[in-house]
């Protein structure tokens, strides 16, 4: 019987690939987050400020061709913002959860792991996009796209500074509600199309949850619209010049906060996904890029819903301008900076809630929506109407 060769010298000599994970680098990490934030800000300034200013000053917007190019460029830039936001938030969320849970989070790719998402995206791109046997092929592929596009559509209507908005819709609030509701279709269709029981249960739950939450959400938004006298988002922000809406509109704010967490499908309202109950729910059978689209949509929403909290209740872009002319470019850039900082704070709060709470049950969630939030939202709406009357009379 042949004896084995001694495995003694086969000890794995660790060979470092990339960066040394054992070295904590708080300085590098801080620098990376600053860069992330700075690049996002730069992208916002380019997309919302520079490009429209250029087109307007050259008068290109008057011709059909010029407008077409403008639209295409803006759409690409919006997509860029969405992608950058998702790439940043994924690594920031993982790092934050790591810090909270006494771990270090991703550490291997990039100094202190800050490039983790890039490699994640590359991995997902390289994966086989597998579809199980009894899926509905068309809807199965369409669903992630619907979800992503709906998240991405909301970005268009968000004003980031005075006069800086991609599409200054006069029904901006309704557009937001419509776009976010569209996202529910992606989730429900994706769950039903994959032909699995877990996905089907996830789709049921998604349907029940999103329908329940759209109503108080819309009513809370409506209260803000009534109070500020306009559905145009930039008007709403302008209306908060003296007093942020969070003070007079506190009840709609609470309703909106809870409802937007449910909209986001993060804990405590992650029922459609519920990996410990439904093994992933609506995205059980998704892999590769299809999964990545759901994932990206989730993180774009993790940026957009806090951004809407800021726009509707926390004074949007308002902040001290240090004597700058509000119509000047510098003032607008500063305003977009304020907007992004406020949004970052709210993103952090959303992540914090996600790290703390366990999950609700489906019927409790509907109870909360229909019996708790809906009356509260209606009360908020009436209050908003009274306040509006009071403001107009005085």
């Amino acid at each position, binding site marked *: 019987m042949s004896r084995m060769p001694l495995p003694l010298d086969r000890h794995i000599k660790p060979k470092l690939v990339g960066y040394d994970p054992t070295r904590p680098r708080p300085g590098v990490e801080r620098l990376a987050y600053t860069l992330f934030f700075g690049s996002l800000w730069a992208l916002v300034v380019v997309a919302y400020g520079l490009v429209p200013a250029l087109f307007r000053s050259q008068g290109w917007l008057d011709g059909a061709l010029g407008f077409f190019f403008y639209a295409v460029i803006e759409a690409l830039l919006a997509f860029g913002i969405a992608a950058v936001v998702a790439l940043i938030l994924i690594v920031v969320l993982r790092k934050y959860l790591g810090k909270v*849970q006494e771990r270090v989070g991703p550490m291997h790719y990039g100094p202190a792991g800050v490039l983790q998402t890039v490699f994640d995206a590359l991995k997902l791109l390289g994966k086989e996009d597998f579809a199980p046997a009894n899926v509905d092929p068309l809807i199965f592929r369409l669903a992630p796209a619907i979800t992503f596009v709906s998240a991405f559509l909301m970005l268009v209507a968000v004003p980031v500074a005075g006069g800086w908005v991609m599409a200054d819709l006069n029904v901006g609030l309704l557009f937001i509600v419509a776009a976010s509701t569209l996202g529910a279709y992606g989730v429900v269709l994706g769950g039903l199309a994959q032909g699995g029981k877990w996905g089907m*249960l996830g789709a049921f739950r998604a349907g029940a949850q999103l329908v329940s939450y759209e109503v108080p959400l819309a009513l809370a938004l409506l209260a803000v619209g009534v109070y500020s006298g306009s559905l145009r988002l930039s008007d709403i922000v302008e209306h908060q010049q003296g007093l942020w809406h969070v003070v007079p509109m506190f009840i709609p704010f609470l309703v909106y906060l809870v409802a937007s967490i449910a909209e986001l499908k993060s804990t405590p309202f992650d029922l459609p996904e*519920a990996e*410990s*109950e439904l*093994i992933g729910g609506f995205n059980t059978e998704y892999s590769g890029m299809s999964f990545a689209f759901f994932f990206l949509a989730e993180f774009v929403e993790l940026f957009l819903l806090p951004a809407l909290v800021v726009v509707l209740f926390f004074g949007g872009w308002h902040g001290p301008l240090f004597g700058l002319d509000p119509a000047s470019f510098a003032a607008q850039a500063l305003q977009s900076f304020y907007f992004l900082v406020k949004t970052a704070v709210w993103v952090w709060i959303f992540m914090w809630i996600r*790290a703390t*709470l*366990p999950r609700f049950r*489906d019927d409790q969630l509907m109870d909360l929506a229909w019996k708790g939030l809906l009356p509260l939202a209606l009360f908020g709406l009436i209050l908003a109407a009274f306040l509006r009357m009071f403001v107009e009379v005085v």
Partner: protein
Amino acid sequence: MRGPTQILPTDRADEMLINMGPQHPATHGVLKVVIGLEGERVTRAVPHIGFLHRNHEKIEEARTYPQIITYTDRMDYVSGLQNELPFILAVEDLLGVEVPDRAKYLRVIFFELYRLASHLVWLGTGMLDFGAITPFLYTFRDRERILEIVEKTAGARMLPNYFTFGGVRRDVHPDFFKDVADFLDFFEKRLPDYYALVLDSPVFQARAVGVGVLPKERAIARGASGPVLRASGVAYDVRKAEPYDAYPEIEFEVPVREEGDVYARFWVRFKEMEESIKIIRQAIEKTPKVGPYKGKVPARMKVKGSRYRAVEISRGHLGAHVVGDGTDRPYRIKHRSPSFANLQLIPDLLVGARFADAIAILSSLDPVFGEVDR
């Protein structure tokens, strides 16, 4: 051929059968539950076990007595050390072995350390079932400290094979008592966080209060034990009912709650952790710092007669019935395991609950499949 656990495809249009497990994140191992769902409501639930069956009792018949201790560890692998005790106690009784005082207290300290470790695993994975990821990492970090203390003395972490006939296998590491005291201080500081994250959390209370109610009579009839039984209002604890080792000399309370729901089962385990801290503190105080750690045991064990001994492990009443025929190998060993009995409650508790509740109830029963299937 239609056995009691078989379930035929449903003929009802509004019922969906779903196989939860054996690879499901919330079944804590290899349980398969065939669940009939009507929307989100569970209409029937049939547990299928046996995916981890390793023939423990038969293997043990072919092993000598000292060898068997190694196998008993492998039953409830989450609280590994505790499983050794009933078998060892039974054989000690049959041989008439005298256990020195120090060994008795050391056994109590290790026994309660493993209760803490096991309850921490339960708490972490249980909260994972409830959708909260953060407590999971906290509890596993705390458990790691227990296992490090145990490893320093016993030589292994989960399955240490440390108790032996007449006492414990080796004397403790010189740092042991200090380490344990340090850990208890550390853990006492961490406990309020667990209360804030779990028991006091309104979301958790909404999920747990009034869910999966197990009436007292039902619990007794099904042979439930441990925290599951005590949460239903029966103050039965083997440590009090038939004390072993140094437990008669130690003062502690048996936490009991009347409601019998998921919240009560969580509450009882929380209080048990607090009691364990008290027990270990007392035991450290009372342990003779020096002295023999092992009694005199005959070199060749010839065991004759039959004896049943039980202990209260983290999950309940674990018993071992040893029948010796006068040779160095047992004629028969029967283990009575708590998770197996508790698992019988699945159809009782799950039917009529919502699907999310089913997961919560399963995690509150805290089964470990090494011990269910043996």
